[in-house]
């Protein structure tokens, strides 16, 4: 109870900083609009494709029917998660640029409080993103004419994990790099580098181990920090995907989820350690 009140006070102060911050309002609005737009586009495209002759194989399931809607919405919305991450980077690095983080400490926040409230911000942004996914999935699920079902809603949890991972990594990079431009650049370079390594691992090592040595450790690239949460969100199964999957390593979904959680803890700890030890 005391912890909740303590966090509430910190967040109220954070809200004072945010509520008139134009980039926050613009990016949050774009993201909200984007969630519904991207799913609407996919929904319309899917309906169009279903009408086209020759798409019979895919037609066997509508990706926005319950219970597929949770997975489909989570998957497509996952592509937009760079926006809240960029917002987090801007918000955190601006504190360094304008030295307001120093003023917060001088005024009486502890260094721990500062980093904890930024992590709470990352969590709240992830929760809000997830709520938008729930709303969007429900809306398009109902629009598709199917009956409401929570079956498969675990994919929304995976979306939340991915959103939180992106945001926490954004805080981590911001705290270490401190300069907005460099932090955003580093974030994209990191995403690109990790994806490249992931592809190398999956295409070479994982398949080699499975095919040549009969060792199926899953897709090894999925155990890297960002891919751990990325790998949890996949496009809903359809007959084409099922055929392709049979040639790929097994998806150890919950193992990958455990890795994602472990990385979250690691990045939180590294961010906090950096902020506690360094000059501000």
């Amino acid at each position, binding site marked *: 109870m005391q912890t909740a009140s303590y966090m509430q*006070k910190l967040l*109220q*102060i954070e809200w*004072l*900083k945010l509520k*008139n*911050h*134009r980039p926050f309002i613009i990016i949050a609005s774009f993201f909200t609009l984007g969630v519904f737009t991207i799913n609407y586009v996919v929904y319309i495209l899917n309906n169009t494709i279903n009408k086209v002759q020759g798409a019979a194989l895919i037609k066997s399931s509508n990706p926005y029917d319950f219970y597929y809607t949770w997975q489909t919405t989570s998957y497509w919305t996952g592509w937009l998660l760079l926006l809240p991450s960029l917002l987090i980077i801007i918000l955190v690095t601006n504190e360094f640029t*304008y*030295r*307001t983080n*120093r*003023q*917060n*400490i*001088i*005024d*009486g*926040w*502890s*260094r721990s*409080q500062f980093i904890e409230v930024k992590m709470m911000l990352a969590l709240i942004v992830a929760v809000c993103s997830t709520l938008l996914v729930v709303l969007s999935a429900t809306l398009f699920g109902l629009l598709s004419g199917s009956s409401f079902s929570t079956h498969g809603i675990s994919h929304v949890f995976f979306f939340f994990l991915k959103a939180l991972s992106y945001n926490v990594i954004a805080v981590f990079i911001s705290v270490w790099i401190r300069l907005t431009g460099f932090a955003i650049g580093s974030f994209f370079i990191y995403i690109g580098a990790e994806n490249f390594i992931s592809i190398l691992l999956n295409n070479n090592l994982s398949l080699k181990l499975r095919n040549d040595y009969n060792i199926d450790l899953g897709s090894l690239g999925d155990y890297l920090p960002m891919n751990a949460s990325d790998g949890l969100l996949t496009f809903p199964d359809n007959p084409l995907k099922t055929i392709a999957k049979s040639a790929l390593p097994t998806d150890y979904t919950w193992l990958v989820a455990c890795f994602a959680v472990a990385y979250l803890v690691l990045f939180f700890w590294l961010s906090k350690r950096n902020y506690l*030890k*360094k*000059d*501000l």
Partner: protein
Amino acid sequence: MEILNIRNLSKNYGTVQALKQVSFSVPAGTVFGILGPNGSGKTTLLGIVMDVLKPTSGTYEIFGQSPTADQRKQIGTLLETPNFYHYLNAVENLKISAAIKGRGVDDIDRVLEVVDLAKRKNSKFSTYSLGMKQRLAIGAALLGNPDVLVFDEPTNGLDPVGIAEIRELIKKLSKEGKTIIMASHLLDEVEKVCTHVAILKQGTLITYGDVNEILINEDVVETSAADLEQLYQLLQRMPGKLSINRKDQVVQVNFSSGTADLAAVNRFCFDAGITITHLQLKKKSLETKFLELTH
């Protein structure tokens, strides 16, 4: 009671030693100046005390206890430059400061009046001049009427009227019994408002204590004689002198301000059999004193 107690504080930036084993304490109720040229370590010292910098070694206590974040809430601080959210106005910025300090917002209008920003309180911080930013930072430090204030170069960026106002404000706060720690590279600023002073030079504490003892104005009696060495030896025994030193072809004898008596110096030398060929009274400026201490 001591408000701040610093023990052997050192800070290195790579190979540069910004602070070297600095120790002093700040008594309650004083206006304590930290004086030194640019780069002497004043801001580094205050930055460590405010926990925005980490010391390489050494410790410090605030209010006689190990430092905590809650103690900083009891201190109003302006450190180096005014740091505010540029997209927010004065009131919104002060609301954040007040919330962090755990104080109500009802004091905001008062401090904005004190620093003469009431008319611009709804303007964004980014539209402020340097002087206005400085005044807002002083206003933020005054929030909640704290008993201890830390000002780092408080008159930076202010016009002459603004400088005079802030100095008067500091004197007024001092009269109210507040403890003020003020870093400055301006000697006259320290001399005009401080009761105590610590002088830093390249990270080393040169001296500290009562400002009237350290930055006292002195009378300098410049003398010369045929045998300069003999004169120097004799004047070592001159009653009432503060210090003595040889400089080129003269011997300088320092007395407290207003106490030098040329006739007495002349008589003292004459009685000892030395005829003075040059005798002149000079006033030592504070700047000279400061330069002596820091060079």
